[in-house]
């Protein structure tokens, strides 16, 4: 059974939802233009807002920030490319001369943004897609796979909560320590995995009982529960495909090109505008469609 259609994005066919999110991922990988990455992040945020999932998407900021910062910090430290030296350091064995360049720093920042854009695009997909429907859409006899995936996905937050609670229980007993050496830290946490496995097995048993008690495995099963392909899906798929084609052409003809090495260069305003425009236009089309959808429904 489908989720309640509160807005256009959530009421789309899983294929349309999948394509919409994947276009952002692909666009992000097509070019190293930082304006493209910023535009993708903003557009993904906008679509999350249209789907009412903005709060949930915002909760991913820590992961994005952490991963993005790693790229931002590591690249300038290890990259020896670039001509504008910001910081000159000593000669290090193996690594050579330790110089931090402006180009490497900018490239690291862009990679951080790209990581954030990809994470957020996948997060958006996670938030808007119903796994049972998605698997059902992909396979004709997809119920079992759909069920497996639904259970796995539903249990992800439960297992995360269980592991946090187990950790808290043993931090509170002084067994799992926070301030200690790395080895001791790891050593104090490994036994907790055993408890997590036991807890997960207990939950799995309970769940299996509940599923069995609700007639799972009966001969025959309602087939018509899959979401239908509606005209809205055609519009969304068309706009998403156009954005993707635009991205491919832009990358092929270097319209969005942005070079970091040996020194930062790009094709002026055209490069910035086209990079911002592609994701923004996709967001704009979703916004217009959402307004029309709401009007039709009311």
């Amino acid at each position, binding site marked *: 059974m489908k989720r309640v259609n509160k807005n256009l994005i959530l009421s789309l066919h899983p294929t349309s939802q999948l394509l919409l999110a994947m276009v952002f991922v692909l666009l992000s990988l097509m070019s190293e233009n930082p304006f493209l990455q910023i535009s993708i992040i903003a557009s993904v945020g906008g679509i999350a807002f249209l789907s009412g999932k903005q709060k949930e998407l915002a909760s991913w900021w820590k992961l994005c920030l952490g991963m993005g910062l790693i790229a931002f910090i590591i690249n300038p430290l290890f990259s020896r490319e670039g001509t504008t030296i910001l910081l000159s350091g000593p000669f290090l064995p193996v690594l050579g001369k330790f110089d931090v360049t402006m180009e490497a720093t900018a490239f690291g920042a862009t990679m951080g943004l790209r990581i954030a854009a990809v994470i957020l695009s996948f997060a958006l997909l996670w938030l808007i897609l119903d796994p049972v429907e998605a698997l059902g859409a992909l396979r004709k006899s997809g119920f079992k796979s759909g069920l497996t995936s639904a259970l796995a996905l539903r249990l992800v937050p439960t297992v995360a909560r269980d592991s946090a609670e187990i950790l*808290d229980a043993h931090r509170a007993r002084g*067994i*799992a320590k926070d*301030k200690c050496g790395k080895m001791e830290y790891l050593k104090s946490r490994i036994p907790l995995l055993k408890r997590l496995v036991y807890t997960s097995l*207990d939950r799995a048993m309970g769940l299996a009982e509940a599923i069995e008690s*609700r007639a799972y495995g009966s001969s025959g099963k*309602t087939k018509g529960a899959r979401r239908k392909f509606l005209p809205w899906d055609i519009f969304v798929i068309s706009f998403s495909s156009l954005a993707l084609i635009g991205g491919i052409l832009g990358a092929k003809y270097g319209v969005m090109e942005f070079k970091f090495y040996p020194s930062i260069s790009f094709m002026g305003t055209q490069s910035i505008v086209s990079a911002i425009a592609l994701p923004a236009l996709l967001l704009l089309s979703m916004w217009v469609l959402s307004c029309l959808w709401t009007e039709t429904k009311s």
Partner: protein
Amino acid sequence: MDRNKIIKIGNLSYWYPETQKPAIGDINLEIEAGHFILVVGSSGSGKSTLLRTLNGLVPHFYGGKIQGRVLVKGQDTLGSKVRDLARIVGMVFQDPENQFVTDSVESEISFGLQNLSLEESLIAKRIAETTATLRLSHSRGKETQYLSGGEKQKVALASVLAMQPDVLVLDEPTSQLDPVSAEDFLSTLKSLNEELGLTVILSEHRLERCAHFADLVAVLDEGKLAFWGSMREMACWAREKPWVPLPPVTRLFNSFIPLTVKEGREIVGSIASRQGKRNALLPEEKNQDSKNKPEPIVSRNRNANPLLKVSHLSYSYPEGKEALKGVSFEIAEGEEVAIIGENGSGKTTLAKHMNGLLKPTRGKVELCGIDTREKDVATLAQTCGMLGQNPNYHLLADVVEEELMLTLRAMGIEGKKAEELLEEVTETLGIKPLRERNPQELSCGERELVALASVAVYKPTLLVLDEPTRGIDASIKTLISNFIRRYSSQGNSVVVITHELEFAAQCTSRIIMLSEGRIIADGDKHSVLSESLFFTTQFNKVFRGFKEGVITQKDAIEALEAMKC
């Protein structure tokens, strides 16, 4: 065959795999269609096993050996598959988290209906009907993880009710709910029983909530059917059997057996009027009582150097939910404090600030004068021990003794001192015979005791217990209650988070009530519980208007004696 008998159990015995002792033995029962049946008994008495025989989970899911026969609507459960029996028997389990298959309300309800191969239009109709009947319409579009505890259990009920079974079986469905949500859930069950003629079979520990609903009661003891009859007959039979759970008010009177607050009030009313007390003495008593009231309901500074000082504490979770809003209070050495309030009121969040598991967003928490933000949890644990809601989370070792030694070693206690402490805590909690056992093999109640021992063994000055009585029977509750009083009498402080107000009244002296992250009452247990309408004990409800300040059984007995004089 009597067509009215929807369930017939004959000479039923069952052994779990690799066990010699039967979990249930020689059970004979016949249940009429449309009856509301209560199944009671202590932990491990065989309640859950008996309930699982009704939909075939025992023996089809669990394996093991079975003798005798179970007929449900004429269908032999031994010869039927669980999935076929699901059309006749719907089952709701203790923990809704363990029975949700999908992540949204509608898809959860539709799961069973799809398995029954119903048309999509019929599924939609059933969902609409069921959610409307259970007052869940507003939650239809929600994801299950965002529902309250009471709503989750209602969704679990809706997901089996939509399949339109003839018999509804529920295994301790309210054990994780606050009093108001539990009352709401059980009232819903009663109306389903009365209005739809649904046969309801309910296993419960807390009979004060549902004793008056039951047409018949089955009492199990060590797997045997010890009693089968009406609730009133059961109350007479069980008077001298402390292991049998009864509503608190039922054990109060010698010659009368009230089952409900209403009946209790009638008896107290008649005693009062017979003695001419109600009209003549009540105003005077009220004045007397208000003079005797220990303290007004305000936050108190009991001690110049409190053990725990919480000042203007606010806490917001990363996703933005503000769980605590400007909470301030102090706890002195030797105090026993209960924290009560509905599900989601911030009780656990508050408890997690006491040992530094959570750090304040705003405000301050000081443990023995140390700001919890400045120390790590392991350091704070030297002073504050905490038992979480799920005892299973605490159990790491393969032997009970080793489990307790883990804590002692983490606290730097070894050798003779460790042995002495281990001896003392196992003796006090009555788990000495379990010292060599594997915690995984213990009953739910025994595991709770072992988990409690694992946090109390090194005698932290402040012991925080988060819902220690969840899903356990009266005998274990008494053990925990006695332990708390003994522990605090040694100069330690105990904070108990609980939904069980009788338990709170029994083993604590002060009650803090939370609502939506704020303290709405803080004071002596008599004053706080006496002024509450719903969050109070059965004894208080019975004596309200006749004698103020009655909240425990001891108070009630004294009040009755005073009224009779």
